[in-house]
């Protein structure tokens, strides 16, 4: 006389060698790779565990984050001004500004002497007619 458990286990006992082979070939390797994590991965594993154990299941944290993001979005929408085109216009100096600048340069010249002029300056002039140039060279 046997219990149902005994009947069931006895019936399938011949499969045990297959199960053991499966353990040796696949599961033991899988376990080995999991049981000996690389040293550099330890911090990652600890971080992941903390994240999974403390943060992920905590609904309050997620609710708080959702509220924070929502309020930031609302504030952003409420206080944003309509986009305006800023045109960078450079105004020409007014007459008064020019006079003040000239006055400053004059005072500076009085204090430290006349400012040295550059040795030569390139004068950009529009080219004259060819006939004029010929006249100038012949006169020289």
């Amino acid at each position, binding site marked *: 006389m046997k*219990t149902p458990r005994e009947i069931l286990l006895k*019936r399938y006992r011949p499969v045990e060698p297959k199960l053991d082979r499966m353990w040796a070939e696949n599961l033991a390797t899988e376990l080995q790779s999991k049981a*000996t994590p690389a040293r550099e991965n330890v911090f990652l594993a600890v971080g992941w565990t903390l994240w999974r154990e403390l943060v992920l299941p905590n609904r309050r944290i997620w609710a708080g984050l959702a509220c924070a993001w929502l309020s930031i979005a609302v504030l952003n929408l409420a206080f944003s001004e309509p986009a305006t085109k800023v045109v960078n216009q450079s105004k020409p100096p007014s007459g008064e500004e020019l006079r003040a600048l000239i006055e400053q340069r004059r005072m500076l010249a009085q204090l430290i002497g006349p400012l040295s002029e550059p040795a030569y300056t390139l004068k950009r002039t529009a080219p004259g007619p060819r006939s004029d140039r010929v006249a100038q060279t012949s006169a020289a």
Partner: protein
Amino acid sequence: MLVVPEREQLPVADARAGNAEAWTTLFRRYRLPLYVYGFELLRDEQASLDLVQETFISAFRHITSLRDDEKFGGWLFSIAHQKCVQQWRRQGREAELREELSPEPEAGSPDPLDVLLREEREAEFMKLLEKLPLPQRSALLLHYIEDFSLEEIARITETQVGTVKSRLHYAKRALRKLLEEDRL
């Protein structure tokens, strides 16, 4: 007088710490019960071997999510049960998962599962088990193999305790017929 394994001390904490020897002990303890559960529900040897393998791989990976070490067996079977359900869905056997049962089983009937079966009745018993609808078979197997409580079976199969009660009742009623024939 169901002869079931006692609540033995299993090295679950060591397994959680990554001890390979502890995992070997756990594998040796649960390999056959898991296989029996898988085979009786899937009726396919390779699928049942895969089920044991996948269940243990899943257990390696998620052992940290197990809070109570005492519930390791139930937790392992719940992984296996989920994989069985996935397999049934892949096979398009979802209809077999639905059942029409009256919610309240009749009270006061003797429990025929607490008796011993004669050797010549073993084959009939296995045939009867095969004929049971999947949800009833699943509940009965969990009851037989590991002597899980109604609450544990409900947790493993993700159903209500009342539903488990009904399933066991109908499965036992079918078995009772076999036992009555045995007495004659």
